[in-house]
């Protein structure tokens, strides 16, 4: 091997390596998604198996196969008895309905009486100065987040929110800076450059009140509220689409509803309320606590994040 040939030899080696690396890169793309889905699906299946057959790994008497068979048999018996009980219940209910129809006293499921009467009284123009746009006795307005007919949630909390005296036009403004969840929101509102003493932390109820009088689009335009992009691979949490708010005067979820950081580490974290804008498309793993205008904006709760704070004009509440 001559020394003068060395650069040429190195060039050939490098070219071969680059060429092969590119080829392997292409091959890796084909394998990438396949393996990821395989890992997640197999992982989920193993976890389900563990859940359904917790003692499958402990051979007691007889062979492992026999133990698994016993587990499966138990599971099948449980499922069967549950199915029989459900069937019996369905038959019983249908029988009762038939009886009612015959005597002319059929009980149809009506929306709870709160919808029409309570809302009408709470939003009476004479009492509160609010003129509702779409309230009717037969069809509750779509924009109400506590439409209970489908979710079976009692409206006790909502009644309190509606009962807030609502005078004049509400003005909303977002803080200039972003803040972690554990700060004193009142102090933030008092000292943020964009806000000040005239403002208070917005409550979800304020947004609801506002939505009763105005299209929520007006508020969205005022604070330049962008949409949370749920189609993105890693949905982007930015300070332009999330704001800390309060819910019924509280910053965090009630006790007992807090989140455990991990299953092994039982550290409790406080989940703070925030609002985000989904523009009607809520991701499947997001559980909204409440929503306005068919999930145009949504109330959620989370921790360990920095958002801006949504504030509302204080004097409007006197």
């Amino acid at each position: 091997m001559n020394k003068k040939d060395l650069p040429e030899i190195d060039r050939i080696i490098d070219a071969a390596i680059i060429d092969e690396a590119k080829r392997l890169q292409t091959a890796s793309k084909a394998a990438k998604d396949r393996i990821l889905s395989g890992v997640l699906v197999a992982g989920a299946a193993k976890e389900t198996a563990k859940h359904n057959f917790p003692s499958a790994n402990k051979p007691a008497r007889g062979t492992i196969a026999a133990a698994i068979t016993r587990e499966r048999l138990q599971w099948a018996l449980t499922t069967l008895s549950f199915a029989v009980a459900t069937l019996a219940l369905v038959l019983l209910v249908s029988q009762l309905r038939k009886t009612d129809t015959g005597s002319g006293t059929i009980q149809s499921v009506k929306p709870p009486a709160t919808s029409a009467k309570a809302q009408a009284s709470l939003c009476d123009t004479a009492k509160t100065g609010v003129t509702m746009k779409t309230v009717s006795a037969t069809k509750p307005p779509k924009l109400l987040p506590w439409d209970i007919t489908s979710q079976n949630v009692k409206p006790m909390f909502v009644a309190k929110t509606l009962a807030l005296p609502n005078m004049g036009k509400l003005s909303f403004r977002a803080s200039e800076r972003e803040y972690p969840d554990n700060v004193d929101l009142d102090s933030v509102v008092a000292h943020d450059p964009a806000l000040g003493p005239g403002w208070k932390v917005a409550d979800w109820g304020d947004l609801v009140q506002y939505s009763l009088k105005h299209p929520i689009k007006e508020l969205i335009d005022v604070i330049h509220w962008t949409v949370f992009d749920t189609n993105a691979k890693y949905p982007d949490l930015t300070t332009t689409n999330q704001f800390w708010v309060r819910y019924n005067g509280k910053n965090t979820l009630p006790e007992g509803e807090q989140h455990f950081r991990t299953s092994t580490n039982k550290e409790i974290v406080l989940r703070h309320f925030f609002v985000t804008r989904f523009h009607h498309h809520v991701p499947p793993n997001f559980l909204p606590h409440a929503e306005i205008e068919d999930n145009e904006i949504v109330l959620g709760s989370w921790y360990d994040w920095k958002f801006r704070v949504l504030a509302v004009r204080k004097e409007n509440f006197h």
Partner: protein
Amino acid sequence: MSLFERPIRRICTMPKFEDQNDSDLLSLIRDESQAVVAFSALYDRYFERLFIHCAKFLGNAAEAEDILQSLWMRVWETRGYIIDIDEGNVKGFLFTTARHKCLDLLKSSAKAKSGSIDLVIDREAASADYATKELVLMAIDALPIKLREVFILNEYDGFTLEEISNLLGASLNAVKKRSERAKKILRETVSKLLEINVHE
């Protein structure tokens, strides 16, 4: 009963994982509510490099897929027990695990022996059936296993010699010697190849 008495499952607000460092991603993988997305982010970050490493090390893409499937499966299944790993060591952890799996496979299939056999260049093959590049790649595959792994980590995976020494648990001096020897053998092989081409 209030609105909150509904069971609250996962919540949603997913952080921007691309900006998280490896160690943070591992912590997020331990959090059940964010495990899938954080795992996917870590997977995206390292899959390609690990695949190239294993495929080249084993000389077989299908076997590399098997190795990676079991590696990522292990990471996923043991996510609740992964201890804190410092930033920078996550990469080492993944590559070391992959390396051990590759070595196990090579040992079990007795491929390790083939790596130590000197490459014999077949004149006919060189002139007719194989392109120059392919012969170079064969020469790499034919390197003794210890030299080959240093060469692959250095040339294909972009590890520095110092990183390789940490990864393999060998001294920096030893790694340097292996790297130089691998390059020397390769150059000699390619030189022979060139001579054959010249003579023909």
